[in-house]
């Protein structure tokens, strides 16, 4: 069984930096971690390695410093890690991102044979679109199950799993080859064992540029992106009002609150508060 895990390195802080020229995120110089959802994909991959003897490759598209995320990922006891890095990949929206990842997966396939399962996180903490998993599945022509919460059974050509939708959970049979996007409900990521930790420190990820994966520069990065971020702004913080009651008796506090609420026109929209404004309905 051959497995590829897609991981993304994301900024650790809420410190957002944007390049005003391209209006893109500047990742260099900001402390980074593996995207939280991806940790659960890595854990699942480690389990597939243990239980199904899977060969697992981890892949990310990003700047050179994303090497660190790959080294951390290797500490899950996985086989190899690949960084897709090239100027031509920068400024990608999800369509261009999935193109580059697709080309990277195809290149891995040349080395180890047909990829059975591709794992991704449900969504990234920064870009937060949740579109990369569905996009990669579509490009590969694989089946897709997004939002996986538990896995019942993995067989040679199918997986029985449960996934989360808005209206509830859904148990499905998914044909292999497939792409799964996973949620935090699925598992608890492990702590690395000492040997795996040591290996990850020494490990040097494979680095591929656009020529290595035979990527068409018109389809990757900024030029391959149909969307343009035309403007970004940080919304003003909400300004609060006053503390109207401090450690008074509950009755007084409650009365003050109701009196205060009367000053807001919008409470007329609330059935249960119409009594306050003398509306008898």
């Amino acid at each position: 069984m051959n497995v590829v895990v897609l991981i993304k390195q994301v900024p650790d802080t809420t410190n957002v930096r944007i390049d005003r020229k391209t209006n893109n995120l500047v990742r260099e110089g900001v402390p980074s971690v593996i995207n939280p959802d991806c940790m659960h994909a890595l854990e699942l991959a480690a389990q597939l390695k243990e239980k199904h003897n899977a060969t697992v490759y981890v892949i990310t598209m990003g700047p050179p410093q994303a090497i660190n995320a790959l080294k951390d990922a290797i500490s899950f006891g996985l086989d190899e890690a690949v960084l897709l890095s090239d100027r031509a990949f920068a400024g990608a929206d999800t369509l261009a991102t999935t193109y580059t990842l697709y080309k990277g997966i195809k290149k891995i396939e040349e080395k180890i044979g047909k990829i059975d399962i591709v794992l991704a996180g449900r969504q990234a903490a920064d870009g937060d679109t949740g579109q990369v998993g569905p996009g990669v599945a579509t490009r590969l022509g694989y089946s897709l199950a997004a939002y996986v919460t538990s896995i019942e059974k993995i067989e040679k050509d199918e997986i029985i799993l449960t996934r989360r939708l808005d209206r509830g959970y859904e148990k499905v049979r998914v044909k292999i080859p497939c792409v799964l996007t996973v949620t935090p409900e699925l598992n608890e990521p492990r702590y690395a064992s000492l040997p795996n930790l040591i290996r990850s420190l020494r490990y040097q990820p494979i680095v591929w540029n656009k020529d290595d994966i035979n990527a068409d520069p018109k389809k990757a990065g900024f030029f391959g992106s149909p969307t343009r971020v035309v403007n970004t702004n940080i919304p003003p913080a909400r300004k609060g009002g006053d503390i109207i009651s401090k450690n008074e008796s509950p009755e007084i506090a409650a009365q003050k609150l109701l009196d205060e609420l009367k000053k807001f026109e919008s409470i007329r929209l609330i059935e249960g508060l119409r009594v306050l404004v003398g509306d008898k309905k």
Partner: protein
Amino acid sequence: MRKIFVFVERVDGEAHPVSWELLGKARELANNLEESEVWAIVLGKECENVCKEAISRGADKVLYVKNDQLVEYVNYKYKKVLVDIVRKYEPEIFLIGATLEGRELAGMVATELETGLTADCTGLDILPDKKLLAMTRPTFGGNLMATIMCPEHRPQMATVRPGVMRELPPDPNRKGEVIVEEYSIPEMEKFIEILEAVPLSVKSNLAYAPVVVAGGKGVGGPEGFEKLRELANLLGGEIGASRAAVKAGWISDEYQVGQTGKTIHPVLYIACGISGAIQHVVGIKESEIIVAINTDENAPIFDVADIGIVGDLHAVVPAITSKLKAMKGEVRK
């Protein structure tokens, strides 16, 4: 005619409310885009009532792809149909609700069509000079608003967050046309097959409640939420919770508000025993009125609350409930 497509998400015979919100918004966009019309896309069978309602909610045309195989949402079949009808009718704009299903489906469709897709939008406008759709979305957990356009590829696609746009009240006199699309689904590999649908054991109405009474770590246990529930019921609202309360196992995660929970914008939000962490506040900051009840006058929640009460929620919340009950009793007399 420029077509604005709206995907009508449907469970059994009923449309998801976000579909009507999108039709309301599409109507407004159509008013600002010359020679345009709003098309509702309905997949399934026995959807005649949904089609009718779509017209009363603002659609000029309803494209009804009637097929037995489309009764349930199965991602690869829905993708195939949507890709084919987009290729046939060439809409300018295609809007899909940003539910979990919608985001999965839109991601597949946009990739196959090789067009742009903006995720989870909270604002949509037409730029009059360029006739382009400007799509605004929160990123970084609501800390950064980004406006995105798709200048050259068509359709311009967006998923739109439920509960943000305003639906139009149904107008039974509105005129529109239902086009029943003859469509047979080609033989395909069975990529995914639904074995069982497991409905949620609790179903919260958080996203649409006009009042949310929420509790955090300060509530102290599952019983504490009963007091909040009583006030919420009296106000015709719903209860909510911080992640700390959910993690403590006091309440189901269906009720969690915030970055990793639901984003809500009720008229009135009452935060009881919630400190006001940034990840919580991003989920409530669009509320009309925020009330905070907390024993610690330095809690950050007071920085965003319109009305602050320093006090013990276990005493203050029941006092509010009984005051309101008394007032209602008087009115009835």
